[in-house]
């Protein structure tokens, strides 16, 4: 079964068409990478999948587990198992990380008709997932992402992914701003979540991340369209030849 099916998707942002007919399917259990130069529409694709306001679908369809995703609000999508790890996680001073995690987790559970978790059980669950990502108690007690380093912010995104256990995870430039150790740590976190029941879409500018998170398929996005698709070695090719050759093709 296809976890995600994007069919001839057109998206307009502030009156300008950014995505011009994207077609892409990700079966359950697979990791697909979307690579592309700046301005090719990578972030627009991730925001559109997550349902951000202002990203208007003017044509085509997005199906998630066979269900039309477009009319759903961002929170309804999250409750159904769609997760977007942001390129720039937002700092929210005044909201303690742990409180945020508990609120989000229980909001999702409530939306799915599952019982909420109490503070103790949430804390146990968070601690268990946090250890593997080297996220300490202190970080959990601090305001969400406020004053976190780039690496800490990305690890916090992966912690949320581990906690919410989405079935479709979209990672938007998760490698940006990470040094090699942080990158490895984040990639390990992501790889630990690969599963036959989960699909992932890894969006990146550089091949580097794909050495650690090896994708099943690679798609090249340029000018709002997928211009080329292939196996994991396509990423290596791009690393050598750059995007110019692809865009010309």
């Amino acid at each position, binding site marked *: 079964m296809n976890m995600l099916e994007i069919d001839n998707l057109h998206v307009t942002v502030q009156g300008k068409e950014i995505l011009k007919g994207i077609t892409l399917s990700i079966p359950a259990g697979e990791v697909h990478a979307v690579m592309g130069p700046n301005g090719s529409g990578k972030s627009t694709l991730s925001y559109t999948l997550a349902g951000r306001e202002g990203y208007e679908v003017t044509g085509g369809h997005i199906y998630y587990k066979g269900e039309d995703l477009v009319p759903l609000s961002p*929170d309804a*999508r999250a409750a159904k198992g769609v997760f977007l790890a*942001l390129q720039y996680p*937002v700092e929210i001073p*005044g*909201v303690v990380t742990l409180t945020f995690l508990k*609120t989000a987790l229980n909001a*999702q559970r409530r939306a799915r008709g599952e019982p909420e978790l109490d503070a103790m059980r949430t804390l146990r669950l968070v601690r268990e997932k946090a250890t593997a990502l080297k996220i300490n108690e202190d970080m959990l007690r601090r305001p969400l992402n406020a004053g976190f380093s780039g690496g800490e912010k990305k690890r916090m995104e992966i912690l949320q992914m581990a906690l919410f256990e989405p079935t479709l995870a979209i990672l938007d430039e998760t490698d940006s701003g990470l040094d090699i150790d942080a990158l490895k740590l984040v990639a390990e976190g992501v790889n630990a979540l690969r599963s036959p029941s989960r699909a992932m879409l890894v969006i990146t500018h550089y091949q580097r991340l794909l050495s650690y998170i090896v994708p099943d398929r690679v798609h090249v996005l340029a000018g709002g369209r997928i211009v080329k698709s292939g196996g994991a070695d396509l990423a290596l090719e791009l690393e050598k030849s750059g995007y110019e050759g692809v865009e010309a093709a």
Partner: protein
Amino acid sequence: MTALAFKRDTTPNLFAQDFAQNRSVFPGAGLAWLEARRSAAMDAFAKTGVPTRRVEAWKYTDLANALEADAIPAARFHGSLDADNPFAIAGGAELLLVNGFLQRSIGAKGIEIVDLGGLDSNTPDWVKENLGLMAAGAAQPLGAASLALMRGGAALRVRGHETVRLHFANPASDHDTVSHARVLIVAEAGASLRLFESHSSEGESQSLANLGMELVLKSGAKMEHIRVQTGAANALHVTSLGASLAKDAEYRALYAAMGGRLSRLDIDVKLGSAGAHATLHNVAVLNAGIADVTTVMDHAAAHTTSRQLFKSVVGGRGRSVNQGRVSVRKGAVKSDSHQLFKALLLSPRAEADAKPELEIFADDVVCGHGTAIGALDADALFYLRARGIPELEAKGLLIRAFLADALEGFGDEALRDALSVRLDAALGALEEATP
């Protein structure tokens, strides 16, 4: 009492007539010291009358226009009243003032209480020495009126470590009413006081609760002042507060305004000696009406410090006004002051006016100020929603996050819970008014 005619183009007359007609029956009538102070206060008030927008310090808040023409002085209340207790606090002294009259009081060991509605020749010296010396000048015209026209109130003298709960109620009435009350608190040297002050009003008719408050903090005295004002849709709350801080005295205040048609806190803090410190935090949550906090922070001596943080959350057609003047007098070297006004506007018709001012006549001082007015951060809202938090809940979380630092460091857990319940109610109303 007789009903007083009131015309908008002759604004001061409402209060002037009250003074002329009723002064002979005011509490303490015939006491020379009090008569003199009432008269001086009436003269000070007469300079502006009930302020219109033409008075610079009131240019964002038109009290004269808001005040109903047929308001009469509120009478002593004789019904039964379920006094609202927003603070889950037991122990300490407890005072209930209804329509400005002291209705009930429970004392505490380290506190002397005097009913200002019953002043006579036995008035203790500490009341005579202090009552009406602050919050009674032309710069605080409603404060002046509250002294000149005072019908009731309370004076408290505090020694040791004490807690005081002060609740003001304006029950429903058939008439539009005005009440004038005063509160004087003298914290003796080394005393520490936690003061919880709450205001509530009910009913359809308009009530103006006009309160003048004087806080005298002697050397080393510490005071934590937490004030919560809710109010009926047509209520007007004006409080003029004067505080004077002696050497090493500390005044920390959290004011919360959550309702009413108009509220104005007119504050004048004098840091009179080295080591004096004042922290003023204000939180306003409103979807209608005006919440105005106007402060004067007077660094009158060297080595004095002040911090002011005002946060407003405004939805619907509400308006918040924050004005703050910090003045550093000649010779007040090493003064250290900071003020920050922030407002969150939740609807296109919400408004926030912020006006920080600095007057510095000394060298070697640190004075900072800042203002920020904006909407909820769209990136943050999307982030929370993308994590499964529904829109209303996400907005509530962000609003609470916005207010968090203003609430931090005050009271204990029980108080914060009680405040949180109030805030939840105010925020709930805000969400309803703000699609």
